[in-house]
């Protein structure tokens, strides 16, 4: 598999280099499950990389291999130029202090105040007491919780708890932040706020972020690079815009459908034919990013004598560019439709011809 970014292959370009990582779990009945089946992955320094995949794909094992919370069976884990798998316990503990981690369920100490929780990572790293107080205040200011310093976690909302988790992770000045489904327990609005905070930290502190999630919305909102995992293997990776607009693997496409709003309504799917019919409509699924997504696609089709009816679709921001996903029913001259699809593909659109339906299927109701 190609590295995420080509042409930037100096050793320093990558914060994390995983090579040949395998991890096998032994079930009680003697069965073995390969959680990670040979992962080679380089994570770009200074970026936000999202690892996505269905549950059981090995995301969590992969993330926990990066700070060796779960030791892989084989392979090497290189973070910031050091091979963590070869370190003794004491050196590994010190190395972990430069890798922050936040969790789905926050994992805060219930019996410590907000400030006490943030101080914990500094105490564990052996900071002198006199320096801990000012650093904690700095971090609470960064995450906007200065007024909650003396509260206990039980009195905080989920979003506030995750802010404490972020402050705690960032306190010892890590070079890498690992996020383990960090927004999966939060409501959509809070998720957006936490993702915005992660973005801000990434931009302002230059911190490399590696996150795992099962939500494509999180990837779209925050990540630069995406890695798709299935059954312990990497099936696809690349810049988010590229993977969203041109997914190469069927699993990635399926995963994207819900997020892009291009799931075919069941009523139409039931009437779908594989061959064109007289006076029928051709159903297409179209994905476009950037300039193309913002261009007047439908009137372009109209100009070619094709009537396009929208069946489903959504235009939403992908990073700072628009990303359009839609399903349309095209009626008109068959040759003209083929020609139009050809031209749109040439302009960079990802188009899948889903099939053909009788016209009344798209005009009724």
């Amino acid at each position, binding site marked *: 598999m190609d590295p995420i970014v080509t042409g930037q292959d100096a050793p320093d370009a990558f914060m994390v280099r995983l090579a040949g990582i395998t991890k096998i779990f032994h079930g009680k009945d003697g069965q073995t499950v390969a959680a990670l089946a040979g992962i080679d992955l380089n994570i770009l320094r200074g970026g936000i990389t999202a690892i996505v995949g269905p549950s059981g794909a090995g995301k969590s094992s992969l993330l926990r291999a990066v*700070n060796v*919370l779960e030791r892989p069976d084989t392979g090497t884990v290189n973070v910031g130029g050091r091979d963590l798998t070869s370190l003794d*316990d*004491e050196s590994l*503990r*010190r*190395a*972990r*202090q430069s*890798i922050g*981690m936040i*969790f789905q*369920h926050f*994992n*805060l*100490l*219930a*019996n*410590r105040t907000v400030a006490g929780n943030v101080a*914990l*990572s500094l*105490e*564990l*790293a052996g900071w002198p007491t006199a320096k801990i107080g000012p650093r904690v205040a700095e971090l609470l200011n960064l995450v906007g919780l200065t007024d909650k310093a003396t509260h*206990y*976690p*039980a*009195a905080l909302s989920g979003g506030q708890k995750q802010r404490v988790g972020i402050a*705690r992770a960032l306190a*010892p000045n890590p070079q890498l932040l*690992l996020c383990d489904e960090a927004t999966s327990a939060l409501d959509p609005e809070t998720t957006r706020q936490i993702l915005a905070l992660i973005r801000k930290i990434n931009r302002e502190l230059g911190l490399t972020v590696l996150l795992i999630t099962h939500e494509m919305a999180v990837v779209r909102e925050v990540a630069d690079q995406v890695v798709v995992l299935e059954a312990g293997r990497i099936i696809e990776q690349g810049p988010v815009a590229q993977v969203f607009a041109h997914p190469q693997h069927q699993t990635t496409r399926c995963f994207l459908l819900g997020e892009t709003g291009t799931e075919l309504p069941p009523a139409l799917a039931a009437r779908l034919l594989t061959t064109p019919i007289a006076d029928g409509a051709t159903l297409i699924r179209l994905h476009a990013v950037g300039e193309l997504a913002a261009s007047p696609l439908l009137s372009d089709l109209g100009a070619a004598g094709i009537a396009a009816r929208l069946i489903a679709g959504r235009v939403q921001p992908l990073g700072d560019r628009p990303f359009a996903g839609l399903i349309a029913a095209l009626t008109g001259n068959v040759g003209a439709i083929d020609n139009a699809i050809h031209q749109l593909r040439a302009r960079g659109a990802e188009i899948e011809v889903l099939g053909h339906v009788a016209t009344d299927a798209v005009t009724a109701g």
Partner: protein
Amino acid sequence: MSPQMLSLLADATVQTLLMVVVAGVLATLAGVPLGLFLALSGAGDLLPRPGLQRAIGLIVNATRSTPFIILVVAIVPLTRLLTGTSIGTAAATVPLTLAAIPFIARVVESAVREVDHGLLDAARAMGAGPGQIVTKILLPEARAGIVRGLTLAAVNLVGYSAMVGAVGGGGLGDLGIRYGYQRFMPEMMLAVVLILIIVVQALQSGGEALARRLDKRNPGN
């Protein structure tokens, strides 16, 4: 009640409290580390020593399932070795301590096991070593449960201390049996029982109040 009787009651109360406090403190010193070991030494735990853990678990269970009155008699040689006698308050403290250690070990074990496993992940991810995990995570997070367990142990010790009275241990139990029962003095028996109830009540409410203050898991505490 005559002044002599009142003075007997006062002495007996002091003896009982002394037995409970001394046995309680000694058993806590031994039981807390033992409970930590039991909680942390299983296969896949922080400091896996499954063989030793099973062996200690067996001894703990054996001690807990031995009826206390039999334990008192069975360890008389040890009691003599440690205190030079098998009668009196000091001697009674030995079996009381020995009976309370496995009890405290088990309550500490269960309190420590109740600490959310995610906290251990977080601590390890922050680079904590086993010692730091125990002192900065497990004990502080389990403190309310440990205090509740120690309260329970203290209440049990009050009951056991009355039982050692039957074999010459001194204290309120001894007084109740010798005066209240054998000399048919119901007012003495009533006084002994009342004092025991007050002591147990005080321990229970004091322990519960402390545990509540230490427990920050619910909002409003």
